[in-house]
């Protein structure tokens, strides 16, 4: 009788234990890179809104289907516009965005180099 009770309790406990999916940091990284469109400056990872919850489900499904990160972004950009992704794409439009800091870095280096060189005189 005791054994049966123990077995019963064990089965009952397991009934409520749900094994979570594989350690998916990729999932959370994608959530962090998506903007919650109805919130004021929050990512899908941070937001609790209806929209965020729906998008999380969609992303989870697409990861299960085997889609890559960039395919998922492409899909969402097609539906919602570029605004939904936090990483701006590498395009001609965004050339100055990605390269101006490096241009400044190179220019700064040149200026310092010249200053030192001119000092030698």
């Amino acid at each position: 009788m005791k054994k049966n009770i123990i077995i019963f309790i064990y089965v009952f406990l397991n009934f409520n234990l749900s094994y979570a999916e594989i350690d998916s940091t990729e999932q959370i990284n994608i959530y962090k890179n998506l903007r919650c469109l109805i919130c004021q400056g929050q990512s899908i990872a941070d937001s609790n809104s209806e929209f965020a919850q729906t998008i999380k489900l969609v992303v989870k499904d697409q990861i299960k289907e085997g889609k890559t990160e960039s395919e998922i972004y492409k899909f969402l950009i097609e539906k919602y516009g570029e605004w939904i992704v936090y990483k701006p794409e590498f395009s001609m439009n965004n050339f100055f965005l990605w390269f101006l800091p490096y241009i400044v870095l190179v220019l700064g280096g040149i200026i310092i180099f010249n200053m030192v060189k001119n000092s030698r005189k």
Partner: protein
Amino acid sequence: MKNKLIIIITFSFLFFIFFIFYLSLDKEKNYNTKNLVGKKIENFELDLLFTNNKIEVNELSENNFTLINIWASWCAPCRKEHKYLILLKDNKKLKILGINFKDKKNNAKDFLKKLGDPYYYNAEDQSGKKSVKLGVYGIPESILINNELRIIKKFIGPLNNSNYEEILDIIN
């Protein structure tokens, strides 16, 4: 001379920046989907709400115009806009597809019983995931498409009188 050039470049550059800031002051800051007009919606399957059948989005190309309306019984603004959908119900040029969003069948049935059923097709999206394929981000939302399945106009929020008139204009 070099100094003068630097001064001119600096001042022009700054003037340009301040001018852009000035122009940005009255830009609409809320998310809108103007960029989606003209795009073709993808084909996918929807479960029908009251039967066990399915519908494919491609079937909507049979109509001249289709108004896709995403709604739910728990959504208060959906009640407000419902009367415009009823008005559009009998319009020969337009068929309305209703997608019931994250709702319970019984509640949806009650809602339509009380306020009328304007939908030629009644579909459901319990998880909300299908609506993402249409670029939906809040309800109610309505999308007007033509027989090529291209988006003519997206209406965010409940339809009002001017939206209703606009739809009539477009389909005529």
